[in-house]
Each structure stands twice: as C-alpha cells, then as structure tokens.
C-alpha cells in the first residue's frame, strides 16, 4: 500500500442472516426452534439463509479524493460505510485505513434529550472521537456555526428538529478528520443550512480531506465528486468518472415493480408492468432537463374490469416531499373502464422543478373516489439544471418579470404631476 492511499479495500464482504425465523429475540424462540429440530429428527432443520449485503468489494481511494457511493436502497452503501468505520466486522476480505477517520452515519446519534446543548456538545464531540480539550477549544465556533447561541443552555428536548440537527452537524463538522465518511447527512436542515453544509464540505475538500459520500442526491454527488462507486446488490458494478457512473445508474433505475400498497386480498386487480419517461428527445434516460416537456407512458395489466378508474400520477422528491399530482378525473379525462392490457399516457407541461431526484408513483381507485386498488412506484428521474438546485432554490423555479423603480425616479413623476 503506497503512501498516498487513504483507504484500501480488498475483497471486502459482509454476510447477514436473512429472515426473521433465524433471528432469535428471546430464549423461548430458541427452545421452540431446537424442539422442532429434535422432534423432526433434524429433518426440518431450518436452512440458514444468508445473503451478502456487500461482496468482493475492491478499490483504493487516494488521499484527497472525493468519492460518491451510489446505488438503490439495499445495494450495500451503508453496509460499506459501517464496515469502513469499524461499526460492523466484515465477513471476508480486508480494508486498510490511513489517517484519522471520522464517520457520520447519522447526525446526532448519542444526543441526550435531558442534557443541555452545551453538555451535548461535549458528549457528542467525544462520541465522535474528539478530546474534551479539543471541544472546548472549538466550542465557540461550533455554537456560532449552529446558530443557537441563545439556546445553548436549554435541554435539547426543547429544541426544534432544525436546531437539534444544526447543533449535531456543527459538532461533527468540527471534527477535522483526514478521512470523512458521510451517509446522507448533508441533506439535513433547511435550505440555508444545507447550503452551509455543502460549503463546509467543499472547504474540507480544499483542505485535502478524503471524503466518501453516500447520497441519493445526484446533484450533490455531481458537484462534490470526480469519481463514483456504483453498488448493485452488494457488488461494485462501476468505479470511475462521475458522469459515466451516473448515466449507468440512471439507466438502471427505471421501473421497479414494487407496490407500496395493495389490498390484502391477493394480487391487486391492476398493476403497471412497464413505464417510460420520455423527454423531448424521445428517449428514456431518466434525466429531465429543467423546463422540458415530458411524456409518461405506463403499461398496465388488469385481472378484471375496473369501472370508472381514477388514475393519479404523482411525484415525490427524494426527501419524501409530495410535490405534485396529475389525475385523469381532475383533468377531465373520464375513463369508463380499464380492462386487459393497455397504456396510459400523460404528457405534462414543461416542468420547472429544481435539480433533484424524484420518484413517480401511480395510484388507482375504482369508481372515481372509491377504494384504493394499488399504489405503485413506476419510476424515478432526475431533473437537471446547473444552478437551480433544490437546496438553494426550493421546489420549483419560474422566471419572474422584474423591473426596477429607483427612489428618485419614483418620486419624480409625482413631483411632475403636482
């Protein structure tokens, strides 16, 4: 391992037991399990069902490099960070870390509600690996960065969630590590504070810190990292330049046949089998330019005739904010029924959403506002714009018409009139 490598990972893997059947929570469960095994003479012995949350990961990260870890939920991103920060022990392979490592997997872990902001600053500081002397020295800077000076001696259980997160992040920000592992933590607080966090991360970058960064926000990945590691089902499927990696990721993350709602009585009577998001170029890239007209095509399959359906297509931002909804009934397109297979097409006007990651959901109700039959995630897309980021510009951006009336000029006509 050469001197300029900060993290060196070789064949790193982490295996977990799957399923609740093998995870015992009390002695009774174990006794029951052993008894079953005994009574059936071991014939029914439960096969241990393992899965690899991370497998055969191999890469080097040089000192000063900023690398984004991308992948869908459950792809192994957090497992990787947990192994590198020594919270969990790997099942195979090895990793070498050169330098002081700070890991922020969650902001504010270890905060105690009954303690004041001041007491929590010291507590959290030492949880993150700072000495008391270090915290003392940086205390004023921490409080100032968090903007909670007047509440520093109030128990944090009285804090708003924004204040809580600001203080926690501020302590973490002053950790000053050589290598920093971040798991989605830059996406906290209000827009102004997020901007501050991003600026802070950039200043770390300039100081030459090595940053490993998990995020669903492709915009921050793009601005922060020159390189991405793309994980899919625990394996590294791409390791290289950010643009290329994001293209691959976006290409992969289209339709997922996941219902997040359907009625308990068996399969939903209608499901969506394929969905495409077409931007003006007519191609399905998963990336939409800000202000581009878009067409959603959703193929459906029904197992019975669905009377007077109401179909809603809605967008949720990656932070679960419900952004907007299209509905065939509200928009005056009555469907008498849906039967067999077919395609629903929604052409939406130029979307002025700011740069972020969105999920598209479809929900179907019968008899207009009757019972919900299915709700399904049919795709995700990124909105791309170089300046209008959601952290700085809010949900959408529409151009306003501006004019300027200087005080003198405003006063002048009245004078002239009088």
């Amino acid at each position, binding site marked *: 391992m050469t001197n300029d490598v900060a993290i060196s990972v070789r064949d790193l893997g982490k295996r977990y037991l799957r399923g609740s059947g093998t995870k015992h929570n009390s*002695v009774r469960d174990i006794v029951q399990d052993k008894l079953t095994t005994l009574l059936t003479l071991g014939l029914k012995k439960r096969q241990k069902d393992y899965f690899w949350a991370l497998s055969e990961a191999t890469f080097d990260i040089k000192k000063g490099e900023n690398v984004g870890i991308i992948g869908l939920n459950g792809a192994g991103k957090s497992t990787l960070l947990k192994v*590198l920060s*020594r919270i969990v*022990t790997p099942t195979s392979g090895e990793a070498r870390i050169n330098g002081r490592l700070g890991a922020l997997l*969650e902001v504010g872990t270890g905060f105690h509600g*009954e303690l004041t902001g001041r007491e929590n600053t010291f*507590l959290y500081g030492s*949880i993150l690996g700072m000495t008391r002397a270090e915290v003392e020295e940086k205390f004023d800077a921490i409080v100032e960065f968090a903007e909670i000076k007047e509440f520093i001696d109030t128990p944090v259980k009285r804090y708003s969630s924004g204040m809580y997160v600001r203080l926690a992040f501020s302590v973490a920000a002053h950790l000053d590590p050589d290598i920093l592992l971040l798991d989605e933590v830059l996406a906290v607080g209000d827009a102004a504070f997020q901007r501050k966090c991003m600026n802070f991360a950039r200043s770390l970058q300039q100081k030459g810190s090595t940053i490993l960064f998990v995020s669903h926000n492709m915009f921050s990945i793009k601005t922060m990292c020159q390189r991405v590691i793309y994980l899919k089902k625990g394996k590294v499927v791409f390791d290289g330049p950010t643009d290329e990696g994001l293209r691959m990721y976006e290409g992969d993350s289209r339709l997922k046949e996941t219902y997040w709602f359907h009625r308990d009585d068996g399969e939903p009577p209608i499901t969506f089998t394929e969905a495409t998001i077409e931007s003006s170029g007519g191609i399905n890239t998963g990336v939409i330019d800000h202000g581009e007209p878009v067409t959603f095509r959703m193929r459906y399959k029904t197992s019975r005739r669905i009377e007077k359906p109401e179909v809603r297509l809605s967008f949720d931002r990656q932070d679960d904010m419900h952004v907007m909804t299209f509905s065939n009934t509200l928009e005056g397109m009555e469907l008498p029924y849906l039967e067999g297979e077919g395609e629903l097409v929604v052409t939406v006007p130029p979307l002025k959403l700011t740069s972020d990651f969105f999920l598209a959901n479809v929900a179907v109700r019968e008899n207009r506002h009757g019972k919900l039959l299915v709700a399904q995630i049919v795709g995700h897309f990124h909105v791309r714009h170089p300046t209008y980021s959601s952290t700085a510009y809010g949900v959408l951006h529409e151009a306003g018409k501006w004019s300027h009336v200087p005080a003198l000029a405003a006063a002048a006509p009245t004078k002239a009139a009088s």
Partner: protein
Amino acid sequence: MNAAVEKAVASAHRQEQVVIRPGKGLFDLELGLIWRYRELMFTLMLRDIQVLYKQAALGVAWAVIQPVFAVVVFTVVFGNFAKMPSDGIPYPIFAYAAVLPWTYFAEATRRAATGLVDDAELVRKVYFPRLVIPLAKVAAPLLDFAIAFCVLLVLMFVYGIMPSFKLLAIVPLILVASLLALSIGMWLGPINVRFRDVKHTIPFLLQIGMYASPIVYPLSQVPVEWKALYSLNPMVGVIEGFRWAVFDRGNPDFAALGIGLGVILVMLVAGLVYFKKQERTFADVI
C-alpha cells in the same frame, strides 16, 4: 491551547494504519484502545450522572432514600420481629454498613448488564471499543455511593462509633465490588444484546444475591461447614470488610476476601475474552 499541544493531541488520536479484518485472535483484547477512549468513557459516565436525577423533584436525595428505606424495613422485619442477632451492634447501623456496598453493587451490575442495549443507538451508528460502556456504567453509581456514605458517617455519629483509620479500607473494598459488577456485566451484557430476557432476570438474581450475602444477618450465623462455599460469593468478603472497617472489631475475613478475589479474577479474565469475541457482532444483532 497552542498549536503544538493541539498537534500532539491530534497525533495521539491519529492511528497510523487501521486494518479491518473478519477475525481477531481470541486473546487480542485491545486494552490499549480502552486507554485511548478514556475520554469517551469519562463523558458517558458524566452523562449518566447528569441525566439520572434530571426532572426528579427530589433529585440527588434518591441516592440516600433508597438505602435508608431498605434499612428501615430490615430493622423492623429482621431486627425487631425476627430478632436477628447483629454481633452486638445496633441493628440499623449494622444493616446500613452492608446495604451501602450492596446498593452500589446491585446498581452497578444492573447498569453494566443492560448498558449496551440502553445505548443501542450508539452501538449501531458509532465506532468505539464497546467495553467503554460497561466501564462507564460501573463508575457512574460511585457518586450515589459517596452520597450514601455521608449518611453512614451521620449514623456513626448518632450511635457514638468513632471512625478509625480503618475506615479508609472501604476505598479498595468498593473497588473490589465494582470489579465484580464489571465482570458480571461483561457476561450478561453481550447475552442481553441477543436475548432481552437478561433484563428481566437481573432483578431476581440480585434478590437471591442479597440473601446469599451477610446483609440482614451476620456472617457468624452461617454454619461453619458451609462457609467455604458461601465465601465463593465475592460480596461476602466485601461486606464483612465494610463492617470491619466501620465498627473496628476483630480482623477482616481475609479468607473470604481471598476466595472472592480469586472468583472475580477468573470471571474478569474469562469475561473479557468473551466480551471481545461477542463485541464484533453487537452492531449486527442489537
């Protein structure tokens, strides 16, 4: 703090290279790590002390109420009704001298055993040597002990017992009690991570332990042929040591103390190996 000192502190924290691997040697106990994380241990202990009596109207008074109440009950039931002998010492102070170390031991054991689960969030999200938790948990109730000790001094004054220099012996004695609590915590803690049953078992284990220790009765009441077996309970030596230190009578029971220390040593070393082995899976199963 000047820059040079800061650098020294920073480099003390900076480990040259950390190697992360699946397995470790059975006897790789990483005790050096505990020293490096001593500040965290101290801070967690401080947190437990700070938090304990917040938003409790009686506050720190609880540190005194608990043992005093126990002694009142014992005096009525065992001292007056059952006419339990107390080696010629007034029963209330006879009982208090034993309840004092026992209360500490019981609290320290309970906290050391359940501490990992109480701090599950930390275990799941932050790296540090996990041994820091039972260590901090055993240390925190020492403050309660110190407060309750003041009540002992008051009682001694009331009953006209002159403190002798022997009273200093309670410092090493309470350390023995804390080592015992730690060694039990190192066994029960990892089991509690897997099976929450431990939490429900501790109260009655402690209840049994209390009657298996010379608290409401003197050691002289234990039949001679049972004494060796009885002394396997390390709290026997500690409690008798307390009585000796307070009442300044006879000699401390070195035999009982020696057996007890032997038991603690075995449990401590084995517990350490067991804890370190289990530690690697805490975050996965907690």
